[in-house]
């Protein structure tokens, strides 16, 4: 069974977005609901030799523990919230990661900057830059997992050891939904070659590329304000408050739950289902067939919790 945790903010009055402290509370509740409260700390230890774990060396090899946080900054007004990135970075440093070994990234510096992220390539603080930053660029070798081959961001191939995907859940006119797997289109040099046939099976192919697949640790999908129609470009009239974070190690299961949320919001707003709208999110089943994860809802261990302003956690409903 693939585990997915959905954390929903239960307090009213946050339609304009959550603060990083509120996101921190949601992350903590999410990891708890996920059954892995020390997930990030374990991720830190994952690459370390036993000798370091046993304390034989006083200085851990921090180079092996660089975390890339892949944002989605395609649109300024519907980008991965900085408050969420900040909360995650704080959770990572709290779990032992060096602050400078956390890299918030996307395709270009400009896309990050237009979403109000500050570019930082210095040796202090959390770093933040795009694949187009000086000295970064794309891999020298091609990676393939289907008919199209791609160069992959060197942030994934050479710089980070762990990748956390931080997408924004939204409708997508071709893929049905733009969720976690679709966000990795921003990790390759030729995303335009992967959109045919409702992005199927191409979305799975990208996530099956060796650097993408092997670095992936976790998806934390922002579903606080979800655009349920007209995406991926920003269309404010289709924005609906859901108030959730969807968390999973399984990129397919995470997106599967994301589809349920988008379909729910579409129903609530009297929109036809994605299938009837001509854009079924069939890339998710195709990704499951590649072995990337679980797309069958019956085989997904879903835990939904609500968090309120005091930090107290209670059982919640996915589509409540």
């Amino acid at each position, binding site marked *: 069974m693939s585990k997915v945790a959905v954390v929903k903010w239960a307090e009213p009055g946050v339609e304009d977005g959550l603060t990083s402290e509120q996101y921190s509370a949601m992350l903590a509740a999410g990891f708890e609901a996920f059954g892995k409260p020390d997930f990030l700390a374990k991720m830190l230890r994952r690459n370390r030799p036993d000798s370091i774990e046993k304390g034989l060396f006083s200085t851990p090899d921090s180079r092996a523990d660089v975390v890339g946080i892949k944002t989605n900054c395609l649109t300024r007004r519907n980008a991965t919230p900085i408050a969420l990135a900040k909360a995650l970075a704080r959770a990572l440093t709290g779990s032992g990661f060096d602050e400078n070994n956390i890299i918030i990234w996307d395709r270009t*510096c*400009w896309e990050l900057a*237009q979403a109000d992220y500050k570019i930082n390539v210095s040796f202090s603080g959390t770093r933040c830059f795009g694949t187009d930053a000086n000295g970064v660029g794309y891999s020298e070798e091609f990676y393939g997992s289907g008919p199209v081959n791609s160069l992959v961001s060197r942030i994934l191939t050479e710089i980070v050891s762990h990748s956390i995907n931080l997408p924004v859940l939204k409708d997508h*006119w071709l893929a049905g939904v733009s969720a976690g797997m679709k966000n990795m289109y921003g990790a390759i040099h030729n995303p335009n070659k992967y959109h045919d046939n409702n992005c199927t099976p191409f979305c799975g192919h990208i996530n099956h590329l060796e650097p993408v697949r092997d670095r992936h640790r976790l998806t934390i999908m922002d579903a606080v304000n979800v655009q349920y129609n007209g995406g991926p470009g920003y269309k404010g009239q289709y924005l609906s408050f859901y108030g959730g974070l969807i968390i999973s190690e399984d990129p397919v299961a995470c997106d599967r739950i994301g589809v349920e949320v988008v379909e729910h919001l579409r129903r609530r707003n009297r929109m036809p289902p994605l299938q009837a709208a001509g854009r079924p999110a069939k890339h998710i089943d195709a990704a499951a067939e590649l072995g990337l994860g679980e797309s069958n809802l019956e085989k997904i261990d879903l835990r939904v919790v609500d968090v309120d302003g005091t930090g107290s956690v209670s059982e919640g409903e996915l589509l409540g």
Partner: protein
Amino acid sequence: MNRRTFIRCVGCGAAAAAAQSGLLPEFLGGVQNAMAFDYTKKLSSVEARHYKKKPDGGIECGICPRHCFVTDLERGYCGVRENRDDTYYTLVYGLSCAVNIDPIEKKPLFHFYPGTTAFSIATAGCNVNCKFCQNWEISQVRPEQVDNLDLPPKALVDVCRQRKVPTIAYTYSEPVIFYEYMYDTAELGHRSGVKSVMITGGYIEKQPLAELLPHLDAVKVDLKAIREAYYRDVVGGELQPVLDRLIQMKESGVWLELVYLVVPTLNDTEQEFRDLARWVKTYLGADTPLHFSRFFPQYLLKNLPPTPQRTLETAHSVCRAEGLEYVYLGNLRGHPSESTYCPGCGKIVVGRRGYTIYEYNLKGNLCRFCEKHIPGLF
């Protein structure tokens, strides 16, 4: 441009105003480190032609048979045409990423003013993804990933006139995807006495081609195979639309030559050569020049060897036996089949070694020895 250059070439300009917004400076570093620039402003924003707005949003591109459905902020398969709020833009108008003055024989066009030169340009992008592409570093990338030279149509035509280069060649990548740039340049060139030739895979829709052809003087089409499966598996396109466009080109009267890249094990059987020759003879005519080109391993087909000379010679002999009159072998420097032979008397009318003309025996379009008409523009 090599791959290292490509990796580096997405420059990082001065700090953009966007980077100066005030959120989280303590968290994500100061603006002194900002290196973001609006790359979209480095690209063109000229409205594309041949697209339809969909009633429920999004656009359908009509420039090539893919008919990409493109939503807001997305691009078509070519990577150089972008939907912005349901207006479709070409991002490469006037932006050449490859510029060179080449012998016309390099295109190759052997029956088009031999010994002259062509001012050759390309932009980033392509509407197919040939696994053997020799120019993938420009054809398979997005325009912001290469260095672009600002060379709008007028500047391009002016430089040709100043340097006395008679022809502009739209080449290297796939000119169909920079249709508007090519169209306007070719039209302006004709008004200024500069010719235009399109070097293409021929994967273009009927109407855009019909509008373009009057402004072109010659077209060279890479007919990559005569099998649909090859187009699907190796090219990432379709054969039939290319065949349809070839007939359209021939009927238009534009000068047309074909190239067939012979890739070992993938499109190199005698039956394929025979089918190709028969199709060309039937639909384009026996006097249509056909160039067989030698494959060298690169891009995604590094596992295959170069085409054996013997295979190319087989292709040549099969097509000659089927009745094609002008069959050439390319990438085989010094081979006798680089030259043009008169079908009437069998003598060399244009002797070539590589891109060099060493013998010329034509008077206008007539063989100097037997006065047979040799098709083309001489």
